[in-house]
């Protein structure tokens, strides 16, 4: 036994309750990072042995075997065999089994035990097995496997003390030798499963006829028509909540940031530093943090739906449609998240095992209408589209907004169709998924997951937006016009010159004037910045009150722009990848500049073509 903190990994199949066990053992003391060079999350935490010694624990990605079929499983194999770069050699493993699913989970356990690292088996969710009338003999299982077997109920904290005690006992053993596990073909798989089936049967004392209540729920939730309708209803409630529940905290954050900016503005001397901190950092980072409540509500729904097991059913219901454009049902959740914000959406594509399928999903995610577009849509629609009814209960303004959402979705499907036949060409992605049983979500797991997602979002978006807004602020602030000049400082700045000389000539044919060209540059940070940028360009000084600025801006735009220009502007924002954070996250998740470059290129092209077509069609129809 060395003095170093023992290193223990939790290994097991997906749906074995492994993460709940990890949460129960380590509490909130967790660190989330990435394995070097791959987009696989590394979760580690600390537990304590009975004598108070600390223990480092890693939660390995859920895997079905040691023959890897995905980047996740490659990491699992590498850590288990001691080949993972940057990861210490394991001193022991806790192999997690779903007690109700021994047949399915024992083959992987047998493979892990054969590696030679000391193992303790956690016979998890034993309460569910008992509830279903399944009687298991843990002692017999332990004798057959040759390792300690501890019945646990992670979600109720049962069996944890016994598990740690058993772990302590195996940790005090001698240094072990690692046996490299062989790759498996059909014959070896069959033998392993047969061995597993014999052990499982021996350990099962009583097995009642299956309880079919899960299937009775599925008969409704997976019904081809009714199930689909329920899915749509759940999505409808979710989107309502994303916008309704987040309004108050978002306003509070907005006010808080405004107050902070005002306070610093008054407290600091009027110089470039004040401008950088107030107009650059606080305004820019604030523009992103304001989306946190929406993202939290969205993730709350997704985490709860995932914990209950419903998301797999949703993937099943959507897979048929998504297969038509070369995607799979697994892409449904990432695309859904992208309606709030493309950043968590793109991060969620890690669950897609097929690399081409995943890449395509990332590339089309920015076409889902994220909430940053709403302020832009709202101000243009309010200023240009009359609030009249076009049918019973259908307002023209709402209809236009709906068309904008729909254009994004149709555009995404069309883009996926084309991408899958060109740059991300490959065999049609298969879909092989295990359907988990329905379960009540555990409050602690959901809360912990929510906290972790929020932190990751703030850290990633925060740092990226911090640097990009600094750069944009500098571009928009320097050089300063000479004293007495009547040219606005923004026009005189480097960004103003780029807009007038470079951007304006390009966007003029699609109906954009010089003011729009100038607003498009700061809007690269985030789309909704276009609104405040237009406000600046039209020299509206309404302080930090966005609503007041918007009310003042609307009539000015209506007086200055033609309807054709306004419609073209809306069409532009359906497609344009005006979000540095999304581009940076894409770079991170694809590990190359090639894919974000392709994404930016094709989306700007689409934005240009569609805005142009909108402008010219509208002009031809006489909408001016």
């Amino acid at each position, binding site marked *: 036994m060395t003095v170093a903190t023992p290193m223990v990994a939790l290994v097991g199949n997906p749906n074995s309750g492994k993460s709940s066990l990890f949460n129960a053992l380590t509490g909130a003391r967790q660190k989330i990072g990435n394995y070097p060079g791959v987009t696989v999350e590394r979760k580690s935490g600390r537990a304590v042995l009975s004598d108070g010694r600390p223990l480092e624990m890693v939660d390995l990605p859920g895997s079905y075997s040691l023959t890897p079929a995905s980047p996740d499983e490659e990491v699992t194999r590498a850590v288990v065999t001691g080949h993972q770069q940057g990861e210490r050699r394991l001193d022991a493993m806790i192999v997690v089994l779903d007690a109700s699913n021994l047949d399915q989970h024992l083959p992987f356990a047998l493979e892990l035990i054969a590696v030679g690292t000391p193992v303790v088996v956690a016979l998890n969710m034993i309460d569910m097995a008992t509830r279903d009338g399944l009687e298991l003999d843990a002692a017999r299982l332990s004798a057959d496997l040759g390792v300690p077997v501890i019945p646990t109920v992670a979600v109720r904290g049962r069996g944890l003390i016994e598990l740690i005690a058993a772990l302590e006992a195996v940790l005090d053993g001698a240094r072990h030798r690692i046996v490299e596990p062989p790759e498996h073909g059909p014959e070896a798989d069959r033998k392993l499963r047969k061995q597993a089936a014999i052990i499982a049967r021996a350990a099962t004392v009583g097995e009642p006829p299956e309880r079919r209540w899960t299937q009775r729920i599925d008969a409704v939730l997976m019904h081809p028509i009714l199930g689909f309708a329920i899915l749509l209803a759940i999505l409808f409630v979710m989107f309502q909540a994303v916008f309704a529940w987040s309004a108050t905290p978002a306003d509070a954050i907005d006010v808080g940031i405004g107050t902070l900016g005002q306070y610093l503005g008054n407290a600091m001397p009027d110089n470039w530093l004040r401008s950088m901190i107030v107009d650059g950092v606080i305004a820019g980072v604030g523009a992103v943090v304001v989306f946190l409540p929406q993202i939290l509500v969205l993730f709350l729904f997704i985490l709860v739906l995932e914990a209950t097991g419903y998301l797999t059913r949703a993937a*099943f219901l959507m897979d048929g449609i998504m297969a038509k454009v070369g995607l799979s*049902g697994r892409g449904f959740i990432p695309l859904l998240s992208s309606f709030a914000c493309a950043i968590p959406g793109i991060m969620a594509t890690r669950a897609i095992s097929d690399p081409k399928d995943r890449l395509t999903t990332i590339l089309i995610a920015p076409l889902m209408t994220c909430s940053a577009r709403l302020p832009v849509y709202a101000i243009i629609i309010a200023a240009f589209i009359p609030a009249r009814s076009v049918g019973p209960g259908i307002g023209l303004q709402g209809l236009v907004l709906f068309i904008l959402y729909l254009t994004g979705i149709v555009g995404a499907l069309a883009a996926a169709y084309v991408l899958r036949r060109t740059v991300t060409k490959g065999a049609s992605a298969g879909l092989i998924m295990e359907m988990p049983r329905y379960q009540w979500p555990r409050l602690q797991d959901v809360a912990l997951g929510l906290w972790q997602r929020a932190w990751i979002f703030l850290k990633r978006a925060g740092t990226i937006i911090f640097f990009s807004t600094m750069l944009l602020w500098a571009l928009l602030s320097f050089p300063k016009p000479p004293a007495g000049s009547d040219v606005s400082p923004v026009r005189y700045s480097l960004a103003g010159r780029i807009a007038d000389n470079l951007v304006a000539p390009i966007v003029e044919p699609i109906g954009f004037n010089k003011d729009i060209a100038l607003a498009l540059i700061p809007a690269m940070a985030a789309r909704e910045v276009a609104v405040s940028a237009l406000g600046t360009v039209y020299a509206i000084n309404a302080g930090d009150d966005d609503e007041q600025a918007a009310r003042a801006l609307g009539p000015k735009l209506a007086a200055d722009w033609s309807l054709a220009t306004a419609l073209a502007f809306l069409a532009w924002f359906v497609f344009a990848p005006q979000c540095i954070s999304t581009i940076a996250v894409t770079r991170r998740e694809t590990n190359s500049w090639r894919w974000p470059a392709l994404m930016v290129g094709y989306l700007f092209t689409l934005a240009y073509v569609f805005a142009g077509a909108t402008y010219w069609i509208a002009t031809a129809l006489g909408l001016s």
Partner: protein
Amino acid sequence: MYSLLANLRPGARGHVAAVDWDRMSLPEGRRLRELGLIEGANVELLHRGSLFLKDPLAVRVGRTTIIIRLAHAAAISIAEGAAA
């Protein structure tokens, strides 16, 4: 009486008589075996697709339920009745 899993109706039961592993990639075949879909396993077709589409399938295999695409189900032959 053998029929392909791809051609069954929801509610149909049987056991896996043969699988043409060559009709799928190595990792796909392995994943199916890991989920218990091997010769001799008892299966029941539970659901087929949504709306007007008949793909994918939800299949009960032993004590688990898995989702697979039609293309893979066309490589799996099912015999009537439970496995011996």
